[in-house]
């Protein structure tokens, strides 16, 4: 397979294919006589095809990739200016997140079929968003990384602000302000690092950090600056409150992308920058992160338990699940980091699917209020079954993809401090409480609300959207070893960079 892509800048193709699609739509709009339903459907179809093509392209990249090799692969580099360059490359960690992105985006487009307002603009934004998301994981130059990282904010901001719910403006600005403020600190740190190390190339920076090393007190400040950005993205307690608002107001597909991929940039950042580049500071702040993680797990789970809005509940449960990720990352050992990566991938699928589940009933009834629903299983048995599966995934049931990440992060953390692991394990109890209560209120019982009398079960489009997610949840749940094998090489490298001990 690798011969097929030999000589091709495959990562750039994967990254910019969606952007090219966006350009195509913009051009077509100039020549179109006016936007009508037929045109809109054409745009939707085109977008779907572009995202599927992107997924196929990423499969080629995947095939050409050697998972046993811990180094960056499929590298491309074009000198830019003053030492900076357009450099792309992926290791197994980045590759797995790229695959997650390209896998989920076509499903998001399918879920966006219900959009009627300014369809072509919506699709253009979505495609640009995909380019920026993939770019974040592929960038090998820290400036390039920053551009992609920040750039992703803008389309998401507009998606929420224009296609969102009633309080979309508040939510969009809350999202924007939080993430931008965090990132500005990171930008300052990046500039400082480039000035100190004399390079903006990420592998070179890592090499510098591992050999020469940043001074300890410098590391502390750099770590905090990066932390400000990643903690908001994650989001970690107490900078998490933008997430529920953003999710509630965002259109379904934007919620999916937000939960499934944008949040992962925080975890990716910790693994790519904080641990390898500032190992001393990461060690120094380990218990600080543990404390915030356990608080996030317990706090967000209990808050989720009290929510009246389906999306808000799932958003809070995301905060809790991300607590496992940060905890696992800073455990600094193989089980913890493997678990954290796995949890990121799994959460991408399960939370994405749960937001789609909410979207299904929202599209029909235009409300996310839990109390409005009840007894859906009577009218929508297929939907109820699928919703049950992902609820169980959210609860972390063994056999679904929700389990390995949770147990591995806890196992890894237990090796560092058993009390922290015990605190996190409380989340295992709470998650059952809020997830099953939500399910009971929405799906079980008898239909009491007469407005639900005519609600219909999943249609073909929705089926097609869910099937890949169901398959992924079960495969990752029953045979996670094969996914863990894939991320093993990066994990070993990161552990070694963090601890300074060869594995």
């Amino acid at each position: 397979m690798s011969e097929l892509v030999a000589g091709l800048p495959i990562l750039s193709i994967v990254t910019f294919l969606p952007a090219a699609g966006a350009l195509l739509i913009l051009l077509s709009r100039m020549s179109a006589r006016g936007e009508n339903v037929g045109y809109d459907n054409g745009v939707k179809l085109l977008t779907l095809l572009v995202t599927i093509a992107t997924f196929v392209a990423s499969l080629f990249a995947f095939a050409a990739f050697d998972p046993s090799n811990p180094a960056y692969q499929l590298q491309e580099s074009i000198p830019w200016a003053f030492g900076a360059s357009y450099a792309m490359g992926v290791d197994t960690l980045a590759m797995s997140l790229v695959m997650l992105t390209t896998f989920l985006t076509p499903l998001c487009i399918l879920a966006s079929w219900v959009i009627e307002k300014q369809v072509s603009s919506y699709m253009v934004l979505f495609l640009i968003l995909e380019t920026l998301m993939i770019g974040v994981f592929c960038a090998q130059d820290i400036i390039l990384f920053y551009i992609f990282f920040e750039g992703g904010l803008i389309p998401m901001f507009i998606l929420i602000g224009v296609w969102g719910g009633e309080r979309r403006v508040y939510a969009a600005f809350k999202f924007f302000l939080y993430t931008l403020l965090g990132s500005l600190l990171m930008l300052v740190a990046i500039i400082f690092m480039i000035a100190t190390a004399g390079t903006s190339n990420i592998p070179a920076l890592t090499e510098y950090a591992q050999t020469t090393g940043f001074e300890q007190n410098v590391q502390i400040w750099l770590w905090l600056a990066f932390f400000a950005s990643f903690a908001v993205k994650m989001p970690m307690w107490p900078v998490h409150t933008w997430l529920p608002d953003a999710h509630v107001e965002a259109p379904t597909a934007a919620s999916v992308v937000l939960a499934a991929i944008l949040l992962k940039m925080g975890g990716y950042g910790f693994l790519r920058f904080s641990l390898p580049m500032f190992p001393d500071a990461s060690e120094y702040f380990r218990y600080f992160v543990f404390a915030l993680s356990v608080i996030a797990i317990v706090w967000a789970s209990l808050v989720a338990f009290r929510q009246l809005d389906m999306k808000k509940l799932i958003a809070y449960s995301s905060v809790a699940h991300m607590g496992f990720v940060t905890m696992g990352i800073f455990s600094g050992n193989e089980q913890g980091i493997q678990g954290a990566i796995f949890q990121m991938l799994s959460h991408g699928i399960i939370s994405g699917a749960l937001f789609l589940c909410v979207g299904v009933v929202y599209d029909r009834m235009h409300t996310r209020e839990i109390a409005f629903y009840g007894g859906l299983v009577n009218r929508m048995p297929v939907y109820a079954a699928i919703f049950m599966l992902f609820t169980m995934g959210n609860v972390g049931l063994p056999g679904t993809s929700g389990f390995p990440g949770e147990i591995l992060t806890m196992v890894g953390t237990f090796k560092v401090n058993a009390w922290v692991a015990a605190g996190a394990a409380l989340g295992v109890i709470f998650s059952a409480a809020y997830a099953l209560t939500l399910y009971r209120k929405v799906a079980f019982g008898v239909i009491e609300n007469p407005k639900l009398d005519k609600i219909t079960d999943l249609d073909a489009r929705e089926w097609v959207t869910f099937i890949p997610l169901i398959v992924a949840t079960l495969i990752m749940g029953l045979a996670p070893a094969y996914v863990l094998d894939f991320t093993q090489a990066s994990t070993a490298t990161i552990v070694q960079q963090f601890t300074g001990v060869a594995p």
Partner: protein
Amino acid sequence: MQFSPEILIVLGPLFAAAIAGLLQRYIGDRVAMALTTGSIGISLLLSWPIFASFVWGEGHERVIELFRFIDVVGFTSTWSIRIDTMSAIMLVVVNTVSFLVHLYSWGYMAEDPHKARFFSYLSFFTFAMLALVTANDFLQLFFGWEGVGVASYLLIGFWYQKRTANDAAIKAFITNRVGDFGFALGVMAIFYFLGTIQFFPTEVGQSALFAGAVDGVNVPGLLHELEGKRLIIGTTYFDAIELCAILLFIGAMGKSAQFFLHVWLPDAMEGPTPVSALIHAATMVTAGVFMVCRLGELYHMAPLASGFVTIIGATTALFAATVGLAQNDIKRVVAYSTCSQLGYMFFAAGVGAYNAAMFHLFTHAFFKALLFLGAGSVIHGLHHEQDMRYMGGVRKPMMITWAMMTIGTLALIGFGIPGLGGFAGFYSKDAIIEAAYGSHGIGAQFAFWCGVSAALLTSFYSWRLAFMTFEGKYRGNPNAHHDDHGHGDAHAHDDHHGHDAHAKPADGSAPAHESPWVMLIPLFVLAAGAIAAGAVFAPYFLGEHAEDFWHHVVPLAHGEGHHDFPAWVIWAPLTVTVTGFIFAVIFYLWQTGVPKAMAKGPVWAFLYNKWYFDELYDFIFVKGARALGDLFWKVGDKRLIDGLGPDGVAASSNFFSRHLRRLQTGFVYHYSFIMLIAAVAFGAYAILAGIGGGR
């Protein structure tokens, strides 16, 4: 990986469940029912020879590995099927009861509109339970552990229209999760200390908890390495062995409904009665006992943890028996009885009599499933009446059910004459009580007295159940319309018999009908087990063949033969059993006014309300979680974090919203974000230029 019958035993029910569940619309109820019942039947036929090979033959211990589950640097789990004495016992228990319950459900659920779903859940449960008992490492065990939990959740809430059923299902799941909290930490602790979570080695040079032979080579176990190890956190430390043993036992307490975590089991009776027989009597709830015995070597090394197991088990045995005295719902009486019997099994394990614990698990499966299915037959015959106060006079119309229930009762109370023999429960329960007496472990004497007292109460409440249900005159429910049990077609069922349902026959017997043969045949099979399972298998589980039978899979206590005990210890169980019977005769056949008068007293109210555990837990945990959730949300997130943070900053949201409205109307936003990207790019360029210039 080669095909072997063991794979079919475990995976057959899974495939049947999947097909019945996913394709029910296309294949119909009949095919779904036949498929699931048939696949369990095959599992049953294949598992008895395996069991027989351990009882009467050489018994070949083995592990069949399928594929890797999780594998991260020593934290390795493989999907596998472990066959040894322990799993062979469980295979026959699970498959036998499961098959009979499947069969019984053909009759019991005949009028239910969701038969395919029901059978699919039942078979899925069976699969999860089989995966649990054949696990060769902690993670597969945990998979089965949670899998049976989900199946139980789905089946308790099977009649999803009913609010109480849904609440009971959630309560069961969450209470189990409290146990799982301990279990998961126990697994983590084991891995932390030993670097492996595998039970038996499958390759030479592999590290596993227990010793085992691989291709004729003996591989030593790592478990003894726990000795002397400690978990030190700050200034506190824990002994490794005791810590692991206690944490894992907390998991067992949840699954097996032991004291403090027992609250879910009685509520679980909201599920259909066949479910209660299979899951909440014979199999799932015994998973905790199975786990403790599987890890017998660990508990053998942990005197404190064993003492904890003994005391919790003994307390449960007595506590549940007291509550059982005062319940009116026929299923709840049997449920508390189950809880109590599980307590016996645990204190047996706690005093080191793992073989007696497993034997009681084995015999209990037969007679408790029999009692549940018998109770189900009565409920079915009385058109879904469960309250014993409205029964009476059922013996005459339901002679067969009565006979079977009586056998079950005799087995449960452990009726038998020392030296001569008796029903199944006699062998296992007396062995447990004697083992407690003969043990010097922590809490053993307490357990002995709890065991004897509980035996008295068991006899009393069992006969109370039998007399209230079958004897006397039919009392009938004064609230003539039946509290419908949720499943839609129960109405039709009632209507069908509606004419005779409330017209009392002249002789005072109940207007009931005997159950169909498909429900009675399982009762016959179980009754045979309840009579004979003790006498037939006691020599292997407990007696002269025990060494050969167990193959060192559980540690056996030595030198504590039957005849070493004082006569009064040997005769005590029979004495209290007969006493309980006499009291039941007095109160429920002769002086029937006495219990009615007692029912007005405070002691009865205390027992009837299950020692007020539900009220207490509701106040502390449910209301507590709600209050904390509200506090964190409304005060923490909204007032403190948002109030001080973004809302303060973004007070000018009016300003922003004006701008955003302009954005929406045109294509301005396209330009705006292109400009932003450009700005970032130019900014970076400028900065780099500056740096470059300085270099």
